[in-house]
């Protein structure tokens, strides 16, 4: 699947592009201006457009411009545009929307999960063709008993279906996970998200390294052990202070609690601005929804307070679109 990204070029190159590339999606172009977006969308009509509406000055201007893009599928609304959500939700062809700030790995997961809906639309069948009511196929001709095997001209065989959607398939099956969580302010659940992610990954039976890059020992404390420089195994998770070192097995999944900053480690860094639900973390990790993250021995669960805070009010909210 080809993708056109539109928005702040710096952020797209820094965060979005690597996330799409890591998921195997082909980023055809990155547009940093409305004019470039229009040109790229026209040049690559079979590419899916993922656009940050902040590219435009006002909501009205953004909606008008985006409505003219036949291949727009995902839109991101900047903070403060919540009141215009409904106006964007009715954009022709739109399949999903997010409120900034977004987690790009999650946007990628959303795009991949909706691949079935995206692909037919890209073939010019109209907006939302996969979800909307389709015209019934013509009835087969009645059999002709006098001409067995002939049956008149047969309709041409339907073209081969595009690659089936991989929704539900672990996005990183077979590959070790490298994910880091960071929050620009305290108390938003960064460490809880890291712990939850480690617990889910431990449920797959593979070694998981959970790193406290803040070196405050909070992850140890949340696991109920005394902070120590020596790596500690708790359930299926090895917890250590600092970043992963060279002796980490290549097959290990690595989860990092970066605290207030992205750390200097090659991982998919997810910004946490509000407590993340388990479902969101599962999607960030590329785990299928039905996969449950291990048992209680695999790691700690979020505190009751964190659980209460989660739910529909997430760090960014998908604009459920139905036509």
């Amino acid at each position, binding site marked *: 699947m080809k993708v056109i990204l539109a928005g702040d070029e710096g952020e797209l190159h820094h965060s979005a592009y690597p996330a799409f590339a890591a998921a195997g999606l082909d980023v055809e172009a990155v547009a940093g201006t409305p004019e470039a977006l229009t040109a790229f969308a026209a040049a690559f009509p079979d590419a899916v457009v993922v656009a940050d509406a902040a590219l435009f000055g006002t909501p009205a201007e953004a909606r008008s411009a985006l409505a003219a893009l036949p291949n727009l599928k995902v839109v991101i609304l900047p903070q403060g545009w919540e009141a215009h959500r409904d106006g964007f939700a009715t954009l022709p062809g739109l399949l999903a929307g997010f409120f900034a700030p977004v987690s790009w790995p999650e946007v990628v997961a959303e795009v991949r999960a909706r691949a079935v809906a995206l692909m037919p639309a890209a073939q010019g069948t109209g907006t939302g063709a996969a979800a909307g009511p389709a015209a019934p196929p013509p009835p087969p001709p009645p059999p002709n008993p006098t001409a067995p095997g002939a049956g008149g001209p047969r309709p041409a065989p339907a073209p081969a279906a595009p690659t089936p959607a991989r929704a539900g398939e672990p996005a990183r099956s077979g590959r070790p996970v490298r994910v880091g969580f960071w*929050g*620009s*302010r*305290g*108390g*938003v659940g*960064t*460490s809880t998200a890291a712990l939850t992610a480690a617990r889910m990954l431990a449920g797959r039976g593979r070694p998981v390294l959970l790193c406290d890059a803040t070196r*405050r*020992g*909070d992850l140890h*404390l*949340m696991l109920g052990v005394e*902070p120590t420089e020596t790596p500690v195994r708790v359930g299926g998770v090895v917890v250590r202070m600092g970043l992963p070192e060279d002796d980490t097995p290549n097959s290990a999944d690595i989860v990092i609690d970066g605290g*207030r900053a992205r750390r200097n480690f090659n991982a998919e860094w997810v910004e946490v601005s509000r407590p993340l639900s388990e479902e969101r973390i599962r999607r960030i990790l590329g785990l299928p929804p039905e996969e449950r993250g291990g048992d209680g021995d695999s790691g700690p669960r979020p*505190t009751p307070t964190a659980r209460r805070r989660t739910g529909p009010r997430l760090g960014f909210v998908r604009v459920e679109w139905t036509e």
Partner: protein
Amino acid sequence: MILVVGAKGGVGTTTVAAALVRALRGVGLDAADGQLAARLERPALLLSEAAMERRTQDLVDRITRRHLSLVWSPECAFLSDLALRLLRALDERVDVVVDGGIEPPPELNGLCRQVVIVSDSENPVARYHEQRLAQKYPGAHIIHGAGKEQLESLLTAIAR
């Protein structure tokens, strides 16, 4: 100078620091994430830039008269002499309240006559760091939460 330090993120450190600035009619120094300067809704100066000002007393006058906030930035570590000189001069005129976040800059440790540790008694992580901070800052005021009652008792303790 009063240093407010949090045992953990989200326990109300900035809330307490902002309340102290308002109650004491002081000046806020944001050594955390910029939230204090934003919450006070006052014009802010980067301490690293202010420290380069030659006429310190004029600058102190301006800060106190216009109720400016100050923001600590990493460059201050390299300008600690100049920055601390300005802070000392300011502290002689008005109460300076520092929002130190969870890891205050070590340069400020020797400058603060009072320390407030904000914690959460129900959170084991916060309790652990509260004990650690209490050992680091003997005699510090410890409050759990940033509610009205806690703030009033803290102001009473500080006034004493």
